[in-house]
Structures are given as structure tokens and as C-alpha cells.
């Protein structure tokens, strides 16, 4: 009787263990990170020429101005965008303004601008870090405009670099 009971218990225990094993092997767990996605399509492979006009700083200054061909940005929730610039040629500019215009979801134009490299403002209000709207999967056109008030003196070649960085955000 005891032997029957032991065999009976062993039989059901084996079935139970098999079911457990089957359940464990059929469940799938994912631990991979969502990939960081950010895509920038830049149509400005060459330099963007700047035109000059009168500056509000007076006759001894010129205002240089240019608008680049639109770039297209897309990404996922793990990315954000920072924009920065520096001067690589010519006497240091008296004043610089960098503006990036982004078409919002409602068709409105949001913009981000920096003046003299020190402040980063947004049309959404206040000083912001980044300042760009959240990137989405569908590409968004971004237009970059750059203005600089420089010395109105011959022999100076003014050059600037604008850098658009996709930043990987942490969770």
C-alpha cells in the first residue's frame, strides 16, 4: 500500500514538475534596451554663405546673415537635441544670434535661439536646456538661421560652425 502511495505521489509530482518546466521554458523575458534612435538629414554639405547689411550697432559694424537649407530630424523617446556654435575665423563678433525654427505638431513654428553663446531661449518660454521639441518618428524640418554683427573692416574672413547634437537621454 505504501509502495503504491509512493509511486502515485511520484507520478503526480513528476507531472507537476514537467508542467513547471514547460511553463518556465515557454515564457519569454526581454531585457534589452530600447535602441537610441536619432536621425538627422542634413542637406547643407557645403558652407552656407552669409550676406551682409547694415548693423544696428552702427557704421563700424556689419550684420552678417544666412539661412541654411532645412534639416530633417527624427528620433525616439530616448533622444534630445542640443544646438551650439562657435566662431572659427575672423575677429571676434560683437554679437551673434543662432535661431532654429521647428514646425510644431499644430503647424505652428516653434523656435530656439542662442545669443552670444550664453543663453538658450525657447518660444515655449524661459531659458531651457535643449529647447527643442521632443523628437518623433516622422522627420521634422528644422531651419537654422545665423546672424552676426562684426567689425566692418577689410581683410577679415568670418567663419562659424554650428553643431547639432543628438543626445542620448538616460531613463
Amino acid at each position, binding site marked *: 500500500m505504501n509502495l503504491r502511495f509512493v509511486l502515485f505521489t511520484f507520478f503526480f509530482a513528476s507531472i507537476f514538475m514537467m508542467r513547471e518546466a514547460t511553463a518556465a521554458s515557454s515564457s519569454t523575458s526581454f531585457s534589452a*534596451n530600447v*535602441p*537610441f*534612435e*536619432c*536621425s*538627422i*538629414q*542634413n*542637406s*547643407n*554639405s*557645403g*558652407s*552656407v*554663405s*552669409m550676406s*551682409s547689411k547694415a548693423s544696428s550697432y552702427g557704421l563700424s559694424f556689419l550684420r*552678417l546673415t*544666412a539661412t*541654411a537649407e532645412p*534639416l530633417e530630424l527624427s528620433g525616439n523617446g*530616448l*533622444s534630445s537635441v*542640443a544646438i*551650439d*556654435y562657435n566662431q572659427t575665423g*575672423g575677429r571676434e563678433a560683437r554679437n551673434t544670434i543662432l535661431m532654429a525654427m521647428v514646425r510644431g505638431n499644430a503647424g505652428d513654428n516653434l523656435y530656439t535661439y542662442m545669443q552670444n553663446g*550664453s543663453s*538658450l531661449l525657447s518660444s515655449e518660454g524661459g531659458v531651457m*536646456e*535643449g529647447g527643442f521639441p521632443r523628437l518623433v518618428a516622422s522627420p521634422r524640418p528644422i531651419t*537654422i538661421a*545665423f546672424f*552676426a554683427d*562684426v567689425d566692418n573692416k577689410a581683410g577679415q*574672413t*568670418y*567663419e*562659424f*560652425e*554650428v*553643431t*547639432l*547634437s*543628438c*543626445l*542620448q*537621454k*538616460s*531613463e
Partner: protein
Amino acid sequence: MNWFIFPSLLAAALSLNPNAKNVSPGLGSRIVIRTEALLGSSDPGEYEVGAFRNNEKKNVPGEKINDVKITPSKLFLREGRKRNVVISIPSDSLQPGPLWICLSEKPKPKKESVVPISGPQFNIYVRSCYQRILQPRKSLLQLQ
């Protein structure tokens, strides 16, 4: 003039986990970060990796760190093929805190123009950047 027909598209990435940001200097004088570079929907081509200090005011990449060794020295990315990348950063000049690893398209050499360009101009560069946090160096007692 091909660059007008084929605008550059930056969708290459480094496999740096956003949730494992801390890097610790070991016994040596350099921090070594191992990762993989892969192409997304970008055009195949040459890319470059660099390390940058943090711009403390904005928490974005700032000044480039000198004497960073990247292996391989020339990074060509092709579709569907990951490349191992080793970044070796000198830690002597760095303070504990954020730093950035950036992947960018290698700038194309300027083409000679028939008409010399002498007027004012600006260039646009694009890159993708990943933040790491440099931890303070552990003492020899802590390493044991």
C-alpha cells in the same frame, strides 16, 4: 556636386547603454570604454568617435578631450555590420563628473572651387552623443 543629390543622413549609433552610465578609472592612467558602432539608415561611410568634456552650464558636450585613442583609427560603417570600438581616454586631466562620447560623420575635405570663396560663411555639423559619468578614482585599498 554629388553632395547635393545625396544629402548626409546621420543615423549611426554606438551601443552604449543609457542606464549604465558610470565609468571608473582603474589602476592605469586611462579610462577604457568598449562599445560597438552600427549604421542605422545612414549612408555607409567613414565616421569618427571623440570624447568631450561637459559644458557645465548646459549639460551638453563642450571642449574636445585631447589625446584620446580610438580603435580602429579609421571607422568605416557598412549596413548590417557592427564594428567594435575601443575608446581610451586619459584620466589625468579629468575631474569626476559627466563627459560625452560622440559619433559624427567624418567631415569631407573641402573641395577646391574654381571661384575662391572668401566671403563670410558657416558650416553645419551633426553628431550623436552619449553621456558617461566619471567616478572618482578608488584608492588601492578599495581596489583590493
